């Protein structure tokens, strides 16, 4: 263990052998780490050591552009006995056709760089080390995002390589004020993060808060952006997400243009966007690509879907158990007749069907695509109609659950619709005890929670909580304003200087 702890303090030795010994000790039993000793220079007298991770580098670029050049260009006759600094400068000035390179001084830095996919060049008698940009692992091609498909819109999505993701965003915002700050998180994984923002638009308070929270992350490994999300959000116990994520570069660009902060995480094909509010989860990129009137209609349908997702099964339970007089007479009699031979009470029916629906959803996620949709269809048919015919549930319950499931797909954000699905169970339980009164109390508790919730200092229910002061922001909630009148920078992100808001 001590060699790993001391690594930070071990500077690069001028003796190549010593460096090699230490590194071989560090990477003992790591057979994918390559140590390549060579003699370069016109006299082939200069010893170098190339140190890289097999599979993470483009070996061709190193051998073609670096090694070959070093072998041919450097005339070391006069430099054989020169000090390391002169040699190092000479090497640096050599026409190594690598676009990016730099100098390292400690072995820890060498290890970190090598594990990031760079090639480390040790030169005998030099007390500094040169790293050559050689990242080149196998990449997944840019594809359409799986979870955020649009009918009209760009079909490129983020991939696992952070730098390519940054590029995808840069292509959309060719503004020098778009800043990208690199950070790292995870003591072992040392996952690269990029904090992106537009300097003159971003809310500085939010930016500072995001930076501070990322710096305070103390975790061994960050395997996915969800780790970052959970570690930086305001309230982990809330069922509602407070950081948005997207696979779409256009959505990320749009967030940047609003003044939000985007966090790209290496090895994750999603980026995080902060702050996130209730309204932002109900917006989709497609709203801005379709015609205005259609977009307004779709948005309104989405907001209608919201109470359906949360409350429809609970309302069914409340009406069937407590308030049958709410139904039209014919319907009440029909529901009563259909329930006559069903052994389960309405709340059990609703809970059971919702559980089955969640099982079908999970099962279809795990199964490969061609079969998955068939399984979903078959299970829906079998469970739905067969259960009705067997007298286990009523047709109304099947319709209710199907409608609820459809409505949940109308919510653009998967995270958010999952939260609503979770809350639904709470409402069903409350309504089974107190009917519509229970649902109302549940809504009150939900409202309290949402009113308390903040995302990096921004109230979650903005702009509804300030619907007079921020009425211009209300334009982009239930309807979509015309592109001409679209307020790119919402007021809730411009409040840093105002006290108490």
């Amino acid at each position: 263990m001590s060699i790993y702890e001391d690594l930070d303090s071990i500077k690069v030795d001028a003796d190549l052998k010593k460096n090699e010994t230490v590194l071989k000790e560090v990477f003992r039993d790591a057979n994918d780490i390559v140590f390549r000793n060579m003699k370069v220079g016109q006299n082939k007298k200069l010893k170098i050591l190339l140190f890289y991770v097999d599979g993470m580098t483009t070996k061709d670029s190193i051998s073609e552009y670096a090694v070959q050049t070093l072998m041919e260009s450097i005339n070391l006759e006069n430099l054989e006995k020169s000090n390391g600094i002169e040699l190092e400068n000479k090497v640096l000035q050599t026409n190594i056709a690598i676009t990016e390179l730099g100098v390292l001084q400690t072995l820890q830095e060498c290890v970190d760089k090598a594990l990031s996919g760079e090639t480390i060049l040790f030169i005998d008698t030099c007390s500094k080390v040169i790293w050559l940009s050689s990242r080149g692992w196998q990449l997944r091609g840019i594809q359409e995002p799986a979870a955020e498909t649009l009918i009209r819109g760009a079909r490129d999505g983020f991939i696992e390589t952070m730098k390519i993701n940054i590029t995808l965003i840069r292509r959309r915002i060719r503004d020098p004020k778009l800043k990208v700050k690199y950070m790292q998180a995870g003591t072992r994984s040392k996952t690269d993060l990029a904090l992106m923002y537009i300097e003159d638009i971003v809310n500085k308070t939010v930016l500072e808060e995001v930076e501070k929270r990322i710096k305070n992350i103390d975790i061994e490994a960050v395997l996915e952006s969800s780790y970052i999300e959970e570690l930086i959000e305001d309230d982990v116990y809330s069922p509602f997400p407070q950081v948005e994520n997207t696979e779409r570069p256009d959505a990320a660009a749009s967030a940047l243009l609003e003044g939000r902060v985007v966090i790209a995480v290496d090895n994750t094909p999603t980026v995080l966007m902060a702050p996130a509010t209730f309204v932002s989860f109900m917006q989709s990129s497609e709203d801005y690509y379709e015609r205005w009137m259609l977009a307004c209609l779709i948005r309104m349908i989405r907001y209608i879907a919201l109470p359906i997702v949360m409350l429809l099964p609970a309302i069914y339970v409340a009406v069937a158990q407590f308030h049958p007089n709410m139904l039209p007479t014919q319907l009440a009699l029909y529901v009563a007749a259909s329930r006559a031979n069903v052994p389960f009470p309405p709340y059990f029916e609703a809970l059971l069907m919702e559980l089955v629906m969640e099982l079908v959803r999970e099962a279809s996620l795990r199964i490969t695509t061609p079969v998955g949709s068939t399984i979903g269809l078959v299970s829906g048919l079998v469970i739905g109609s067969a259960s009705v015919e067997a007298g286990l549930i009523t047709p109304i319950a099947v319709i209710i659950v199907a409608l609820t499931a459809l409505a949940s797909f109308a919510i653009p954000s998967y995270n958010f619709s999952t939260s609503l699905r979770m809350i639904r169970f709470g409402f069903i339980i409350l309504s089974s005890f107190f009917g519509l009164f229970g649902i109302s109390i549940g809504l009150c508790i939900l409202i309290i929670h949402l009113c308390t919730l903040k995302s990096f200092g921004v109230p979650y229910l903005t702009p509804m909580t300030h619907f007079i002061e921020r009425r211009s922001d209300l334009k982009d909630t239930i309807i979509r304003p015309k592109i001409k009148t679209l307020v790119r920078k919402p007021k809730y992100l411009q409040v840093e200087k105002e006290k108490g808001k």
Partner: protein
Amino acid sequence: MFTDIEVQMKNIKTIIIIIITSILLTGCWDSVEINKREYIFAVGIDKNDKALTFTSEIPKINEGSEEQRLVYTKDSENFSDFYATSYLHSEKAISDRLMQVIVLGEDVARDSETVKRIFDEIQRSPQMNRRVKICIAKGKAQDIINTEIPSNPIVGRFLSEMLIKLKRENYQDVYTFDEAILNLGKTGNTMIPVVEINEKSLKVERAGVFKEYELKGFLEPDEVAAVMVVLNPNKAKIRNVNIMVEGTNVSLGVVDIIMTTDMYLGGDKLTVDYYATLNSYIDSFIIGSNKLEDQSYLNKIKEEAIKSIFAVSESTLYKLQHVYKTDLLKIKEGLFKYHKQDYEKISDKYDEVFEAADINIHLDMVIKSTGLVK
């Protein structure tokens, strides 16, 4: 992150919440499944020697059953007593939340005390909707409820739909309990539809005249129509005016009635003038005659029609003023709203003033159309 004390506080809070929640949620006091209730659709109330006879109609909700409804008859003091007794005689919970119609037997309607008790209970009940339909049975309400109508076996639904239709078409002034109670509160009088058995069905043609919660008598269909013309001229129609003009039977209908009212109260003398312009159309004449092209013939039709309508109006007014002494025309309400100072002087003797009032109807007719042929 948390100190020990904070963790303990959090644990205590959680325990308290769990305890309160389990106490509160052991209830479901009001939970009765929709299929475990019996919904009373119609109730008929008759009088007997000791108490009231409640006849209730409950549609059967079991699928596949041959019977469409159940009819329960019980002697009870009031609705609550009836529910309490019925509760013990059925495996399901009685519910009046979907009640469609209440039928008062003629004997009940003629007893003001009983009517007041029943109306009070209905308006107090939070479950029973004040929009429940109400009508008077000619004879026994039990017979009305027990009627087997082949086309619509549920009498409550049949009557409810019938009354909605009659109200919409302006055949009747009142069709819900709420309207009845509002009218009785404002003027002390109201007109409630009367339901009668008609072979294998039911009919609602006449109306019962209520004064101070007591049934005074009945109005015939044309009298009801005449009252409706005065009460709601914009929506009123006179559907069938049959007259004989120069040996030919002519049938007219009247739509679009324009009416103005003039009320004057000088001391104890009330004078009310109704000026109505009736826009009419010819319903039927006789093939082969082209007399309708003659203006003078049309004028004769107008005269005869006016005479006929006037006769009905006069007889209705006479009945209301002198026989029933009941102001169904809401003159009292008009005096209260627009001539309050004068009304207050005679408010305690309004009945006499109304009986002695000079109520005049001035009719004018315009024949707007002769139909699709001349």
